[in-house]
Every structure is written in C-alpha cells, then in structure tokens.
C-alpha cells in the first residue's frame, strides 16, 4: 500500500512568486492534514480536511495560503505570493476514520514533506 506522497520534495522560489504543493493521501483516508515547520520551530497544524470539506483551518497563517481538496482525493496548498517567512517544511498527513472518530482511528500517516525555500 502506498503511503502519503508529497510533491515536490523541494521547491526554491523567489519572494512574490506562487508555489503549489501537492499531497496524495493514503487511498481511502477521508482525513487529510497539512502542517508546517518554519525555521527550526515546532511542527504546527495548519488545517484538516474531511473528504473535500475543510473541517478546521484555524492554523492557516493568513490569506496568502489556500488549501483545496478537489473530489476528496489529493490536496494542494498554494502560497501566493510567497514571503521569506514562508520558508520551511510542509508536511501532509492522512488518517482513516469517520468523524467524530475515536482516538484509535486518528493515527496519522505523514508524508516526507516539501521543503520550501523562499529567496
């Protein structure tokens, strides 16, 4: 079974440009999460999709970030325009379980991340 895959693994862009990150969750997982770690800080939650709907986007830093999950399959996270402080590693995770799930249904499987460098 394929795990969570993220593309690209590394992206280098200039300030002001647009970047789109993609995440393919484990097949059949309705829950998809985005996280990021910036400048050696802690991994922080960004948002949670249940199928194609945004369940919680309280962690999104500002309106330059747009996450979508068309058809409830893969997800994209677009940063437009990118700023220097957006540099970091963006992780995607998925989990099984139908809301409201119990704890053993919320084990999250993470991708390797996309390292974003904004110059």
């Amino acid at each position, binding site marked *: 079974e394929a795990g969570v895959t993220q593309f690209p693994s590394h992206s280098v862009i200039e300030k002001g440009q647009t970047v789109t990150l993609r995440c393919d969750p484990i097949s059949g997982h309705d829950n998809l*999460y985005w996280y990021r770690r910036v400048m050696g800080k*802690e991994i*922080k*939650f960004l948002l949670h999709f249940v199928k194609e709907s945004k369940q919680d986007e309280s962690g999104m830093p500002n309106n330059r970030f747009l996450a979508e999950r068309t058809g409830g399959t893969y997800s994209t996270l677009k940063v437009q325009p990118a700023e220097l402080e957006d540099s970091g590693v963006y992780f995607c995770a998925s989990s099984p379980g139908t809301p409201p*799930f119990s704890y053993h249904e919320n084990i999250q499987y993470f991708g*390797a991340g996309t390292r974003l460098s904004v110059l």
Partner: protein
Amino acid sequence: LAKTTQPISMDSYEGQEVNITCSHNNIATNDYITWYQQFPSQGPRFIIQGYKTKVTNEVASLFIPADRKSSTLSLPRVSLSDTAVYYCLVGDAWPPGANNLFFGTGTRLTVIP
C-alpha cells in the same frame, strides 16, 4: 499553551533500554497519548498510543500511571537507527486541530555506538 513537557535531548548507548518521559499535568478525561518518531528529512511516524496503564507493540512500550499526568515511552535495546526526535502528543481524537495536535519540541535521542 503547551500541553506537554519532554526533555530536549537524551543520549544512550546501543543495546540499552531508553525511557523518555512526557509530563502532561493538565490531561483531560477524554485525552489520549500518542508518540511519534521523526527521522531527518522525513515526516513523523506513529509509534504507539494509549489511554491508561500499559501498551506494548513490536516497537515500544508505553507506560501510563493511574493519574495519567505523565507517560513514559520505553524503547528496548536501542540501535543506531533509533536516533531520531520523539514527540509526545496529548489530545482528544475529535475534533483534531491545533490544540489536540501540538507537537512541541520533542526529545532528540542520540544513540551512541
């Protein structure tokens, strides 16, 4: 508000048992405890999860005392490949979100030959 406290780093020799303790004094009734492991250039990987007493799987054991205000991840006979950052998360399953999915600084375990 940080919900967990872990040592920043630990060193251990190969073949030893390693115990990493996480404090979570304000754990709520519905909260469960989950440990993740992260290698460099990889995403976190689930290790073990529990609510109370002891849980064991093929990788580790998790000890949770009756008051649940702390938990201890036990790695038997560590090897060099166990060098990683270990995160303790405490939270309710639903709804997930920033409060329940707080990774903190983790514990950097270095296994020495």
